[in-house]
């Protein structure tokens, strides 16, 4: 019973933290650029505003356009039940491993890309086409990084990977782990639409990917999609944080351990947020056709990760 309670509270935690994380990254970025920046709880106001507004829907769109936001949101939310955010092992471990997590996120991307095509604008189509291109060529890196993590732990099961690292801390500094971390970090930037792959703060430029795809969304649908994409950012950060640096996670369900776990989670997310903000301030967006080179590099890193894990096993 406590296990299920834990599941729901961790999903709720992710849901509530996600907008703040997005706001925090924006705020740090603003500070780094010598701006004052909006407060970090600005995204909550945005959600409240969007949920209060009417939806304006294109007259070309079909039912798919109206269903997609719910599927995108539900698939991202479902993932928060499967990944170790504050504790491991989890009661839902047998429902899904890392592969399920990756493909659930792909399910959301798939429907969002379809919705982008549904309104019949060139913007939507462009966004969908690019989003699917990036998603497709990011896929092998993710799979190989999973392979490399699974090699160390003997399992693709998320909690197993976490527990294996906790019991054998030396693994965290093995070349396989470090290379896989670098590979997944690059892929996370691509998958969550950050610089240098996509610019989350741009609007109406021919370079954009995610924002072009959701251009026709408004009101509550846009709120769901924005929230889902912040959730996705939180998920990738949490995976990076907890799979590679699992310390702080509660392995026993005591109030003290859980409190520590929540605090360390927030700390880890904040650190990763600062790193991403620095990266986004320091580098410019890549041309679209340079992106495959970046992802190719991450693929090579992942391949090296697997190879070194093999040789050192």
């Amino acid at each position, binding site marked *: 019973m406590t296990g299920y309670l834990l599941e729901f509270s961790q999903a709720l935690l992710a849901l509530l933290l996600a907008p703040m994380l997005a706001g925090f990254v924006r705020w740090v970025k603003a500070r780094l650029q010598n701006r004052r920046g909006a407060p970090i709880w600005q995204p909550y106001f945005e959600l409240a505003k969007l949920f209060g507004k009417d939806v304006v829907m294109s007259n070309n769109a079909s039912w798919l356009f109206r269903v997609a936001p719910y599927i995108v949101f*539900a698939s991202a939310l479902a993932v928060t039940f499967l990944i170790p955010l504050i504790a491991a092992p989890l009661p839902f471990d047998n429902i899904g491993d890392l592969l399920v997590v990756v493909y659930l996120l792909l399910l959301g991307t798939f429907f969002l890309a379809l919705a982008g095509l549904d309104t019949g604008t060139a913007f939507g189509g462009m966004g969908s086409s690019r989003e699917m291109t990036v998603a497709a060529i990011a*896929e092998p890196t993710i799979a190989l990084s999973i392979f490399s993590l699974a090699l160390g732990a003997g399992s693709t099961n998320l909690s197993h990977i976490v527990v294996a690292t906790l019991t054998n801390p030396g693994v965290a500094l093995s070349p396989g782990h470090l290379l896989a971390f670098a590979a997944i970090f690059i892929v996370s930037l691509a998958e969550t639409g950050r610089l240098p792959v996509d610019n989350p703060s741009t609007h109406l430029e021919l370079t954009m990917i995610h924002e072009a795809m959701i251009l026709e969304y408004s009101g509550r649908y846009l709120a769901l999609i924005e929230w889902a994409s912040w959730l996705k950012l939180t998920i990738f950060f949490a995976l990076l944080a907890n799979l590679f640096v699992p310390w702080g996670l509660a392995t026993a369900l005591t109030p003290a351990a859980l409190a520590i776990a929540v605090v360390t989670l927030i700390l880890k997310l904040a650190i990763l947020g600062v790193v991403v903000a620095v990266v986004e301030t320091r580098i410019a967006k890549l041309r679209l056709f340079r992106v495959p080179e970046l992802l190719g590099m991450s693929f090579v890193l992942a391949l090296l990760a697997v190879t070194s894990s093999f040789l050192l096993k």
Partner: protein
Amino acid sequence: MMSNLFFIMLFFFGFGALTALIFPRGLPARALPAIGAGIGSGAGFALGVSHLFILHPSSFILSSFLPLTGFALRLDGLGAFFLIVIGLVGVSASIYGFGYSAAYEGRYSLRVMGVMLNILLLTLNLQVMADNALTFLILWEAMSLSAYWLVLTESDQPGTVRAASWYLAMTHAGFAALVAMFFLLSGGELTTSFADMRSTSALLSPLTRDAIFLLALFGFGAKAGIVPLHIWLPMAHPVAPSHVSALMSGVVIKMGIYGIVRVALDLLGGGPVWWGGIILGVGAVSALLGVLYALMEHDLKRLLAYHSVENIGIILIGVGAGLIFHSYGMMTLAALGFIGGLYHTINHASFKGLLFLGAGSVLHATGTRNMEEMGGLIKKMPYTALFFLIGAAAISALPPLNGFASEWLVFQALLGGFNLPVPEVALIMPVAVGMLALTSGLAAACFVKAFGITFLALPRSHEAEHAHESPLSMRIGMGLLALACIGLGLAPFVVVPVIGGVLNGLGGLPDTRAAFTSNLSLQTPAAFGQMSSTLVMLGLLILLAVIPLVMKILRVNKNLRVSDTWGCGRVGQTPRMEYTATSFAEPLRRVFAELYRPSKELTIDFHPDSKYFVQSIEYKSEITPLFERLLYDPFLRLVQSTARQVRKLQAGSLHLYLAYVTVILILLLLAARWF
């Protein structure tokens, strides 16, 4: 009971073929052959199900069927599994074909179609029961020829005859290899039963066994459509009537998989590591090249045909990994690989059958296979769109549908590769993982394109604007397969033990009926990974119900206004502003330009007075598939030049011919004297 089902099956296929002969046109010509084919396939399906679920395995032997002809039939678990695959698509395609063939009335011969459809289904069903080489080869040829006739149905359309000829050439090249293979395997006696071959195959020299394996890979690979023998597949599948395309892509090419598993695993009992390695390699290359060429297609049915190449590749990745583990004696992991492959076989049959039927409905409604002329069909054809969407999500391996369950198993089998004792072999596995992951990502991109351009946004042509939903029978055909996609995805904990039972004992595989499941979850040995698509589905459904409910409780604004698409200030949107299939795939075409090597041709007509005014722009770009360019074109040129040389022999002079006869006779006499 089982022999009853068998004779019901024979009777109804016979009934279907005969009624097709008797009634050349009208309702009976469409209904009666469809009834025969449908009930016949249903009986085959029931036969497979009753064998796997009710009766003790290997209890059904018909070696006395047609005595003295050398015909021998015997049903085992593997055969029964394929009977289910055939029946699943056969029933749906037959029901669908009833509605679909209405458009053929008066234009093409319903008679040939009805007869050949029944013969094709009959031979498919018997094929998997064949118990000696003679039976196997005769049925194989009958199956290939009936499919050839079906491909030729629309023989007045451009490209059909060429496609059918390619199919015939490739399938016969494969057939020749299979004849040679069975001669080696049976020691020259084609009526040797499979049971005898099983016991004698171990005594053959390693070289002979290698030759048998390679011949089988070529012969069955040509049927399955592995790269580089896939060339006929994207030609022949699109030009056949759509329910036949569904059968060919869903079932006929699976006979190649059946053959490879039957010969390599069952009859030969496995072999050295490189057997599995070569199958794994061929599978990975087929998967990746299949999906890459599919991405560049804007002919909906050709796109689907290339995806068949891809999925055959995924199946073979599982089978190849299984054979590799088998050769090291790691039997549980070997079973995992084979289960993944066979699971993907039935999954691919259901979603590819569904997608081809969906494409047929679109073709039926718009009269074109060109995606660039479609669009907006989701509003005109809501059922077809929904079914096609289910198929598209399933083939993209999205959870919780069936494609995901089997790809998950294949992934897990590959991940198990780190247990292999030899590092060089073990390092093949991560490369295969990378290729499989790239394949599934690209497949998702390709089906966003296929569904999005075909069904969403504004209609791009007059025909698409006036499209209509398909008749009931066609919707039922698609609906059955859509249900299969959902059901096979939700019940992996039923399917996997059944396939484990099918493989039990083949090539010494252990009983793995209970090895990979626990309650509603799939799990790989020692909890290497766990997954429950059932519970994922349940979770998603609950969330999809709860989210709107919470939004309602929180009194979220639920107004919705319909208005024009925003267009940066321009008024009035036309379909010409939409993204097209070609533009959708453009980024990937650039990324993989080294492979595609597209030819470009740009002609711009300027105004005679000023080059700042353009009168017209013409842009052409074409992609010739790698293998046509590098392999088949040179080969065909070689054949043609050889033929020209040989023609000199045939000079038309009677004296010359008499001289040939004399020379040959003398040579033969000398040969007889010396040997």
